[in-house]
């Protein structure tokens, strides 16, 4: 421990910081985006690396976060692909265009089901979307007026539902799962006028845009008076809580229900039990499309990118018995898959209006 030692440490530190400037130029494929798409991209990345490709980096940033990074520009510092549990918004496309990311290909991967489930120790029951909306929305129509949600028990909504206090664990607002739930349940109920109040409102509003504005404002918020509990992004945590509280229900991705079927039972939505078959056929009402977006300008620059995309849309991955379906993705029908494959491989340009 003398001056020599300190000199060595200082030299090593300097050497360490030098490594930055000598970073390799041909980097691996970088993928960001939705945590729902993450397991599927993960599967493809692993398969791709196993087959001898340079292992891609897959990061789960959430759909919105992924879009922001993806659209931040072209060049090595920016990711090549982003996953999304909803289609790209016009505002995001604008951001992309502004930063020079004009040539983007959209690839529809398939569908993902959202499940509402409770512990097997609890009561199994069936709800409809309007009942779900009445149980969990911040404002619901009562006697022709939109009021703060008064329902405390499921049986307050409908006599056929169990005499049980409403307790639902679900994802926080930052989550794509939450967005999907609001859109597929709340907006579905309001937009389609599944409750008399909303049917009347649609007629009264007349103009489509005015109505859209109205239900976006009044039919989006989850209730915050207790029955709905935000349980964080970690779905395993929700599974554990459901086990501890048989009277509570949880909202999470279908893959978590699939893996925990010995502990959990699904609530039927409108009498339909979630399963690979019912989600694929669209019979089960709460499922959503999943996408990846590819930056075409990077295709020729980043090593292995065309091969990776080929692997992603191949029949072994996205096909009927492909490995993505084993992970819980509900795959596309054969003819749709053909079109998607062609679009992905030929770098079809995404045009939004």
């Amino acid at each position, binding site marked *: 421990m003398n001056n020599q030692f300190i000199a060595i440490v200082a030299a090593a530190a300097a050497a*360490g910081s030098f490594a*930055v400037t000598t970073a390799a130029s041909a980097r691996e494929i970088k993928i960001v985006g939705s945590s729902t798409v993450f397991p599927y991209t*993960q599967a493809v990345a*692993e398969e791709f690396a196993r087959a001898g490709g340079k292992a891609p980096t897959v990061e*789960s940033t959430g759909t919105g976060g992924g879009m922001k990074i993806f659209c931040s520009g072209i060049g090595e510092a920016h990711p090549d692909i982003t996953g999304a549990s909803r289609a790209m918004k016009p505002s995001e496309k604008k951001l992309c265009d502004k930063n020079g990311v004009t040539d983007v290909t959209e690839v529809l991967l398939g569908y993902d089901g959202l499940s509402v489930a409770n512990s097997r120790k609890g009561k199994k029951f069936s709800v409809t979307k309007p009942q779900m909306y009445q149980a969990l929305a911040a404002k619901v129509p009562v006697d022709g007026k939109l009021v703060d949600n008064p329902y405390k028990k499921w049986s307050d909504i409908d006599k056929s539902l169990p005499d049980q206090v409403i307790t639902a664990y679900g994802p926080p607002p930052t989550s794509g799962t939450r967005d999907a739930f609001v859109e597929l349940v709340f907006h579905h109920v309001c937009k389609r006028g599944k409750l008399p109040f909303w049917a009347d409102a649609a007629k009264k509003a007349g103009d489509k845009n005015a109505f859209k504005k109205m239900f976006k404002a009044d039919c989006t918020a989850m209730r915050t008076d207790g029955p709905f509990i935000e349980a964080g992004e970690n779905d395993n945590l929700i599974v554990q809580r459901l086990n501890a509280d048989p009277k509570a229900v949880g909202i999470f991705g279908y893959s978590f229900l699939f893996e925990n079927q010995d502990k959990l039972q699904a609530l039927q939505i409108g009498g339909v039990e979630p399963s690979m078959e019912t989600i694929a056929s669209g019979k089960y009402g709460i499922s959503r499309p999943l996408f990846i977006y590819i930056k075409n300008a990077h295709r020729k620059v980043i090593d292995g990118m065309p091969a990776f995309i080929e692997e992603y849309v191949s029949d072994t991955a996205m096909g009927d018995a492909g490995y993505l379906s084993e992970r819980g993705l509900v795959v596309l029908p054969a003819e749709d898959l053909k079109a998607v494959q062609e679009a992905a491989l030929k770098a079809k340009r995404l045009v939004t209006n």
Partner: protein
Amino acid sequence: MTDISQTQPTATHDWTSATARRRVRRRYAADRRLQLYGIAAIGTAVALLGVMFTTLIYAGYAAFTTTKVELGVFLDPEKIDKDNIRSANFRKIVRDAFLSHFPDVQGRTDKRNLSKILSSGAVYIVRDYVVRNPDKIGELVTISVPVSDPFDQLYKRIIPREIQALSSDRILLYRQLEHRDVLSVQRGVGVVKTTLFVDPAQVPKEGGVEAADYQRMINEAFRSFFLSEPSLSYREILSPSAAEALKNKVVANPELVGKTIEVNLPLSANYDNLLQKGEAKIRNPRFRSDKEFAWFDSLIQRGLISTPFTWELFFNADSRFPELAGLAGALSGSFLALLVCFLLSFPIGIATATYLEEFAPKNRITDFIEVNINNLAAVPSVVFGLLGLALFLNTFGMPRSAPLVGGMVLALMTLPTIIVATRAALKSVPPSIREAALGVGASKHQVMLHHVLPLAMPGILTGTIIGLAQALGETAPLLLIGMNAFIPSVENIGLTQPAMALPTQIFSWADSPERGFVSRTSAAIIVLLGFLVLMNLLAVYLRRRFEKKW
């Protein structure tokens, strides 16, 4: 006490009086209480720690063994090209080898389900084996490969084969029936004695009793049975053949129409089991058929299943399959990040502390710096992560997910700890050492480098190691700079190559749906805690070994 009695020899205070003795007793009691509070506090802390470790080990021990199957594979030279081994269709070779253990299994679906017992990583394990041992081509070799996660969990009894078929409220319905004493077993079939009105309104004019709606009659009867369950359908409880049984009875005796009769209706399979066997169980729905259990059991019976120690946990890269996922990427990422962190924070920290402690004049500026360093030590780590994201990634354009950037962010976090520890260590070196060195003519830098710093080094190192141990467990700043990326290979390890770190790996596994990741997560936490304990022991050792007493 003695002082008082000495200065006041004529004691006015009677030490033996009842009040005095009571007061003394109370003081002793207060002493004992204080001790008890302390012991209780320590006890609570130890108990909580114990609970944490027990749950961790209980949840994580399973991940330290992997369920493997001995797979006999014939490495057919016709299928594997010696010069281009990787191009061979190992998927088919492994599948055929595994299916050959079950010559009776026919049919595409069965074969497909059967081959799902094997981990999908088996293909690559066999391929890598052949790549390593090309001379084995043409031989029949036995390779131990993991089974897929559900079967691994099944063998370790983490997930059950059978679960309760009926949820608790349905069992409650059964108890109600039991309570009414209407259940019995007749000719081996569980039946429920139902009082039922054969409603003439349900008997159509055309078709007569043959075409009557018996289902509705049964439903009506059950509705009055279970008034609290208005939505209950009798199909929950009765066998689908119940309506048929009623129909047969009425068709045989058409005069029953319009009367209230008692009829024995057969129970559904689950309720029948509950009545006759005391419990109703069904196959765990995670598995597709009972055949899968039979196949797996036959592997167990043949002694092909074993559970060796999971070395893969330390040597495999991350994977989406829990039975293949390992910590190699996270360990190397954490090591590199800590190395960078050490190389940056150690020299800078010592230089800062030495200057502030030994050379800097005491004025407002140095006071200001000192206050700021102490404050920095208390800044939440996520703030450093945000700084790293804004400065290193966005402004300097450094690579995302790289251990270099992770190490730099962690260094920011560790610096204050090292500075504070170094200053304390320098302060503890007695002034006599400095004065003696100066007295024999050493210059200021000689005093520092030759005498003071070496003597302070044990304290400095202890502080540094504790700072690094903190950095090792830090998650939030690494998440922000993308060190939670999934990287399925450990071939490219480097400061600027993307990597994971131990805590972010734990974070990512904890959020995976597969059941095997539950124990994998706990196992990774145990590994992380193991490293923390090792580092702290090293700090203790260094302190004991090099500490000088004056």
